[in-house]
């Protein structure tokens, strides 16, 4: 019986902590609701249009991926705690389990689900027009070009 004491006390503490923090804020904090406080914060602008309910699907994909890989880590905890007891059998079991997830991860990266980047392609403007503009304006004094260290040369690609 005694071996379950730590778990039970941990559960009790958890419930107590959650309960107190909920109840305490309701008891002690001054409750002064006002319609401004209920309204969403829009940088000081009164929201005049209803916020759209639909969200782009890319947020949903990332959420699903996170849950999947998060649970994978949770399964690794019991193994990590008892790895001597589980021995080599446990190790290979765990390795297999992780390999499956790794394949999924490679597939996701290949499919580009994590490509979150902007639509804007690498806008490198065409240097011909720019050079012509620049040359026609070179003044007398000396000019120092900065910000080019470690960057690819300006390829001649239309914006």
């Amino acid at each position: 019986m005694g071996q379950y004491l730590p778990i039970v006390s941990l559960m009790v503490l958890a419930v107590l902590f959650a309960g107190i923090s909920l109840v305490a804020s309701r008891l002690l904090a001054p409750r002064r609701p006002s319609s401004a406080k209920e309204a969403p914060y829009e940088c000081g602008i009164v929201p005049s249009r209803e916020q759209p309910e639909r969200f782009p699907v890319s947020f949903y994909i990332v959420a699903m991926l996170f849950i999947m890989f998060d649970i994978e880590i949770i399964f690794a905890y019991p193994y990590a705690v008892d790895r001597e007891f589980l021995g080599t059998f446990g190790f290979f079991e765990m390795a297999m389990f992780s390999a499956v997830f790794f394949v999924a991860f490679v597939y996701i990266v290949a499919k580009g689900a994590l490509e979150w980047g902007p639509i804007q392609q690498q806008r490198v403007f065409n240097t011909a027009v720019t050079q012509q503009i620049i040359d026609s304006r070179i003044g007398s004094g000396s000019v120092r070009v900065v910000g080019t260290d470690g960057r690819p040369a300006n390829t001649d690609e239309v914006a």
Partner: protein
Amino acid sequence: MSIVDKQKIVSANTDEGPQELRSRSDLTVSAVLRDVGAVLRMSESEVAAMAEVSGDVGEDQTMIINMGPQHPSTHGVLRLMLELQGETVLRCKPIIGYLHTGMEKTGESLTYMQGGSNVTRMDYLSCFNNELVFSMAVEKLLGIDGDIPERAVWMRMLLSELNRMSSHLMFLATNGMDLGAVSMMLYGWREREEVLRFFQKVTGLRMNHNFIRPGGVAADLPAGWRDDILEILESLPSRLEEYDILMTGQPIWRQRLQGVGVITAHEALALGLTGPILRSTGVAWDLRRDMPYLHYDQLEFDVIVGSYGDSYDRYSIRFNEIRESMRIVYQILEAMPQGDYRIQNKKVTPPPRARIDESMEALIHHFKIFTEGFKVPEGEVYTAIESPRGEIGCYIVSDGSAKPYRIHVRAPSFVNIQALPHMMRGGLIADAVAIISSVDPVLGEVDR
């Protein structure tokens, strides 16, 4: 009744109606293209390429949100309405006017003596440049711009260069903080504080000095000003090296800024941009060298130019312009002449305090100048100088009385902000923050 309706009844209406970004459904394609920031002087191919980028995204896919007046990263009270598809910014519309102070109307009822204190509050990061452009305009109208004493001219250059350094240090601080390098805020401010203390010693105020006045400068440099400046100039290079390692060397910093907010020379000229943004596209246009004023033609300095037109270029331009300004200040230290710091023309410069008790005429001049102000001959003039944000111009129309009939200040940030939609097109929201901070707008001079 949903909360939003209830909300509308209770508090005053902050909705600006037609000034806001309208949703895609009630706009024509050309209006959408214009909102996307298409600059119509572009070639057909670019407009075509632009069309497929903006495309007709389904109406419910996009969301219009407010990066409103009270926002940590909009450098003041700039309000941007962004149309987002997920994290990508499709359209952006800057809405300004939240700091409109009616300075041009107030300027019309202040005499030329008091005008400086009104103008200096426009671009509150480079106060000396505002006063300088206003004073030069008034001096041209008076016809005395030729015989301002040498010491006053050199002091004006000294103060406006130090002001450029403090403004660019402020840029480093806020640019770092906007991109997450929060400790950069502390470092940037530590240097800026040194320069502000020197300003306080010279002019008595840390900001809004009203020190450069028509006819010269308000007071002489305090004793020991030379080694104060040398102390600043000696301590700065080592710290700039530190920031170089802290920021320029970091791959994260580079990826956050490189290729973000690209603008081409052709588009920059079409929008009338000036300053570090124009120079980042490669066009070497710096008023201090191309249309020199004061004694900038006797100084030897480089114009810093970028080549990609993106935020990283603008950052490195401002970073190196601090070094250029330090070089200029060294040269000014050597060439600073002796002599009086204000034109000895009785009609413009009030007599020194001591003389007032002795001579009746000095008392009359003092009284006339400070109550009624000196009269400026009729005419109109436009002068422009290079402020840290670009070309700041002052257009004064005078009707012969002691108050300007019309004063208009051409603010560089007002024009640079109009380039935001163009730079933000297709980028992420995080890039939008980087772009705003790379444009470095000061809302005081935008809304005047």
